[in-house]
């Protein structure tokens, strides 16, 4: 019996020692926080507070009411005040944001997703073939899309500007597109000429406006069996200065699925749009669509991200009830600008695009607002986050209160 007690006591001691060591190790890395030196404008002062707190901690052994002790207390106060403010902000922000699910959001939250099919427009300094900047001249370029598949095409434009934004005469002297090798192993390049023109024909809409346009048809121009980046370099001449415009697109010949219509259903207080899809290649699909109200005002962004089997399937896009109740959009709603792709993990290209559905693809029925549920989103993920964020805020509040004293 005595021997058993000794074993028990020894085991308990060992376990408690292990637990103590484990907890101490977890804390050791935060005990010596300090701040980076230097200027700038910051809106979170907790880094500096931590530095001071750390310095004060290093003076351990002084009395709590000595000058150093009081300073250390003030620094700890500043540190925990910062932590408390951040944890409160994080908690409140998450709570408010997740009133709606992550896949059914006010579109104001996604400012660059409102018009997803607008050309990507950029303005950059004119650079010569060596990459050096040519002073005083800029190129404004557009490209219709970055990712494309199958028979899709992409339009490019180039125009020259001075620093004041005034159009400058420009000529595209030559342009070519080629595959971009992704490996260090030599591979055969695919190359094709591309014709930019300002004659008001083909891809060019207005003759002689100084804006040169071209359209690339990867499937018809030698890239039908290629998946990867196609780089288009256009040599330009602006006021006697030679330069280059540079475009990249990512192409895959495969079209993994095709669209087959839309249906809607008001279910459990939310409006679900079911995008019908014929899936050729199963896998994880990512899709999004915009919802405008009856006046054409952008209202919501709906997203889909899930595994889908091959065959006739549906992507379910949910317009969350509380979002409708909170914003009261005018019905009927219009579902527009739908895009989607197969997400292919751990490789490049990481996606095979479905054809874009540009413009309005579906108009909803009209529903009374009280048919939508006012309930906020509920999920295990949300509860998990709110519990943790709440714990953090409460810990910081209690620590702050303790430091502030009675």
């Amino acid at each position: 019996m005595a021997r058993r007690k000794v074993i028990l006591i020894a085991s308990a001691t060992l376990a408690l020692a292990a637990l103590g060591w484990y907890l101490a190790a977890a804390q050791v890395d935060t005990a010596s926080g300090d701040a980076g030196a230097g200027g700038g404008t910051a809106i979170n002062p907790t880094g500096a507070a931590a530095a001071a707190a750390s310095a004060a901690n290093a003076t351990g052994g002084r009395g709590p009411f000595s000058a150093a002790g009081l300073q250390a207390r003030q620094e700890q106060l500043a540190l925990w005040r910062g932590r408390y403010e951040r944890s409160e902000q994080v908690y409140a922000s998450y709570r408010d944001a997740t009133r709606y699910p992550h896949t059914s959001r006010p579109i104001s939250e996604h400012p660059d997703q409102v018009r997803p099919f607008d050309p990507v427009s950029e303005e950059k300094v004119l650079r010569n073939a060596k990459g050096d900047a040519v002073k005083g001249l800029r190129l404004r370029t557009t490209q219709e899309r970055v990712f494309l598949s199958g028979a899709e095409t992409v339009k490019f434009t180039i125009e020259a500007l001075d620093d004041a934004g005034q159009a400058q005469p420009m000529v595209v002297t030559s342009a070519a597109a080629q595959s971009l090798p992704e490996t260090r192993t030599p591979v055969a390049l695919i190359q094709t000429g591309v014709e930019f023109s300002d004659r008001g024909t083909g891809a060019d809409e207005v003759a002689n406006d100084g804006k040169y346009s071209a359209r690339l048809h990867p499937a018809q121009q030698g890239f039908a069996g290629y998946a990867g980046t196609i780089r288009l370099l256009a040599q330009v001449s602006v006021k006697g200065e030679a330069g280059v415009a540079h475009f990249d697109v990512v192409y895959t010949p495969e079209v993994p699925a095709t669209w087959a219509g839309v249906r809607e259903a008001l279910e459990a207080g939310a409006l679900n749009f079911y995008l019908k899809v014929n899936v050729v290649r199963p896998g994880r699909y990512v899709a999004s669509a915009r919802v405008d109200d009856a006046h054409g005002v952008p209202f919501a962004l709906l997203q889909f991200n899930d595994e889908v089997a091959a065959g006739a399937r549906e992507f379910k896009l949910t317009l969350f009830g509380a979002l409708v109740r909170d914003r009261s959009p005018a019905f009927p709603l219009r579902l527009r600008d739908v895009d989607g792709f197969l997400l292919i993990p751990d490789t490049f290209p990481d996606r095979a695009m479905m054809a874009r559905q540009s413009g309005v693809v579906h108009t909803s029925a009209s529903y009374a607002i009280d048919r939508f549920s006012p309930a906020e989103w509920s999920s295990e993920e949300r509860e998990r986050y709110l519990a943790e964020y709440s714990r953090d805020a409460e810990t910081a509040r209690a620590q702050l209160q303790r430091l502030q004293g009675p």
Partner: protein
Amino acid sequence: MRQGFRGFSWLRSPRAVMAALAAALVCIAGGVYATNYSLWINGRTGGGQPGNHADFTYWGPSSTAAGVNKISVNWDGYNRISDQNYRIRDALDCYCTGTNWCYVAAHSAGNLQIGYALSLYGSTARYKKNATPSSAGVCGNTDGSTQTGWNIKWVDVAAGAAGGSELADVGSWAVSDPLTADLKTSTARAMYDHNQTRAKWFYMYAGAKGTLYSAVLPGQDDEAVAYHSAGGVSGSGGAGFCNPSDWFCNDLKLGTAANEGGRAKWAYHSVIFRDDTESFNHYTNGNWGGVVSKVRADMAANAN
């Protein structure tokens, strides 16, 4: 008698005591005890050994404080975001599932990595892992159950390249690594919906000590990325944003406010540090340098 004292009556049973101790040790060994971690995601060029979560070569001395239980999420900094992103997801699975939670710090292209993971994989089912990585940076399952997404408290970003860099256009970077093509502004910005962070905050730290490429990088820059990217500005690249002292350029606003000229930031992105004195460049210099020093300080103070 108070309930608390009666609660220890099981101590009289040796078998129960042994069982409780065994359970406690299993919990400790298996990482069941709730633990916070600080994950550091490197940028271009890498330097640390991929999969080795203890190798801080990219950042600086590993003895430097950089948040609780710091982990170096090494990816190669050379290949495409998409084909290296598994390294980030593996680390998030390891340390940010089950009862464990993470703070994340990212530098430069590491911003693209964490943004890509959250936007495209943040809603996926993740196995709960035991925080004990193999040499490949992969951890074992705890109980075989899954959860939706990862447990991430917030993300600090130094010199974020999620908006790309004009230096990725032809000519500025002599090498043509696959990653450089991802860093082209149009490509980086089209890669995923940068607003979809699943309501986790990205705290942005933007440096401005750039001179070498000031003719190429618009507005203020840290010698590798411009404010439009480091400040989490939405929309197309190529736009110049500056410190308030520059009267001829729109201001990058602190916090979540839209910038001067009206361009919004991505959702849940807040500019915490703007380098008004042009003191911080892009580079860690193997010693937690440049604007990374500001993020390191914040992690040391607040990732607890």
